[in-house]
């Protein structure tokens, strides 16, 4: 995406603000905000791009592994990171990317992406709907499989999901699944669900997750599966006036 094109579009707005006074100001302000957001979108996408690039095989001819994003406890930004990684992959790769919400117990993808919660994987696993019904397209080459309503059967459905051929079906279609996995410590089937991913990105929320939780979660996961850690919500600990110029 060419951000500079959007930036160039901002120039006339600045002139308009000078001529039209207050109304022009508001108009320009809104547009400028959008531009900043677009720029920020591109910048944030770069963070997620780094994640999948670090997890993909060195040899481009190799099959893209199933990337999973997990964490030690909840509210660490797993869903967002998984969605961001999927979005970055969708932007860069030719293959369709399917974001699979494997956290059946406490799904959050519908909030993150603003899509309907049901039907989802749970309904599919119970045989209530077809897979295609639950597959939502968000953008070009970017699809989402929401978790649906587990109705208190999250652990059983998770086991069923692990043993199902869902991922295989997606991969056989040429799609690359990205898994939004449940937390390792907070979910009873967290470690089990992680076994679906070929490679794991471990999310740690700055200022929230304790070292004990991180250690315990990493100890439960297979060492070779965890390929990297993502520090989410990192903030400079000192104010800018004390850090000097960044």
């Amino acid at each position, binding site marked *: 995406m060419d951000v500079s094109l959007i930036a160039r579009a901002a120039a006339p707005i600045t002139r308009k603000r000078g001529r039209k006074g207050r109304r022009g100001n508001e108009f320009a302000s809104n547009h400028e905000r959008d531009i900043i957001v677009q720029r920020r*979108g591109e910048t944030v996408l770069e963070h997620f791009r780094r994640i999948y690039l670090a997890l993909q095989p060195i040899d481009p001819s190799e099959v893209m592994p199933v990337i999973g994003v997990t964490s030690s406890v909840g*509210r660490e930004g797993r869903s967002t990171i998984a969605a961001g990684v999927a979005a970055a992959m969708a932007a860069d790769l030719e293959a369709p990317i*399917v974001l699979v919400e494997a956290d059946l117990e406490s799904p959050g993808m519908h909030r993150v992406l603003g899509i309907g919660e049901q039907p989802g994987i749970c309904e599919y696993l119970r045989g209530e709907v077809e*897979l295609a019904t639950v597959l939502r397209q968000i953008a*070009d080459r970017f699809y989402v499989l929401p978790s649906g309503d587990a109705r208190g059967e999250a652990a059983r459905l998770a086991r069923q999901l692990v043993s199902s051929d869902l991922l295989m079906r997606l991969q056989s279609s040429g799609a690359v699944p990205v898994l939004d996995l449940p937390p390792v410590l907070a979910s009873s089937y967290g470690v089990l669900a992680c076994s679906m991913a070929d490679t794991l990105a471990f999310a740690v929320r700055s200022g929230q997750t304790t070292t004990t939780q991180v250690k315990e979660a990493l100890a439960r996961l297979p060492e070779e599966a965890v390929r990297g850690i*993502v520090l989410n919500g990192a903030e400079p600990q000192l104010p800018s006036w004390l850090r000097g110029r960044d």
Partner: protein
Amino acid sequence: MRFLAKLLKHWYLYLIPVLLLPAAGTLYGKQKLSVYETSALLYVHASDALTGTNTDFNSFASPAQNGADLMNQLLQSTNFVIGVAQSTDLAKQFDLTDRTDKDIVASRIRGDVVIVPLGVGGNLVTVTVDDKSPTIALQIAKALLSSSSDSVENQRLTQDQSNEAFVNQQLDQVKAAVALDVQKLNAYINAHPDSGTVGKAPDPQHQVLLAQLNTDSTTQARLISQLTSIKSDEAAASTGHSKVFDVLDDPLPPLRPTLHLKGLIPYTGGGLAAALALILLIVGTRTVLDRKVYSTRDLRNITEEMELDIPLLTEIPVLETLTRSNRRQHDDDVLSGVLVPILTVLPQSSTEVLNHEIRGAVGVSVMDDD
């Protein structure tokens, strides 16, 4: 650095103890240091009592200096101070027969009273009494003036009585000497009738006896005069007419408390020091007890400790959401809201080709879906 970060993160909260504790210290100090002050102005007489008969006094100093010294010396006497306390409400509050209470009361009165000679004139002395209680301050001031006067008069009386006895003893001896001198002279004149006669050559022995009689008589006259003076002074002292000082301005009941601002500095400073110590304690405790992960360094420490070779993929900063309402809606997810612009960055397909492909791959015909 984590300590500093924790300190600066909620620095505005730490302003509360920084403002409150010094203020509390100041208020406490104000309450503790506020005293009621009363003072009296004395005119000290340049009498013999201070400069003459009493050799303890400095005859080169002013009466005011001598008077102030006298009163300050009296204050050093516990008996005198307790005597002052007997005339005040302190006698009701404390058991003045108890040694500990005596010390407390004496210390309090000594701390309350300031006696200084004024630079004006040379006869003026101010007596200032500070106390937490306005009543006691006034009582101490009045009792101090009264007791000082009484004490000086008693001292003078005692001194006079002692001097009188001494002078009487001397006078008796001199009287005996004079009587002896007269007796000797008469005996000599009887034995030598011509001696001392006019026109005759002077008799040396007669002259000697006469001179001795004159000398003893003079001494006797001087002692009688001195005794008369002592008796006069003694009579004045015993009747209360011999005043060392006059009270020009009586001590008045204090109307409002007096506060010395300099005295507040330790209390305000103490409050500030306590606030800083409290902040250091809180921040220090929070730093020590905080086991959360904040930085890549913390993550590196974890992996090194666990001997894991897991790299840090990226560090995603906190980004503001699109709007405030968005932020509220997705409060549980720090990056919620930024995904919306990300998705707008993604190219939106103008065709349904890929959609059809993947839907077809998962087993649904495009026609069915449509």
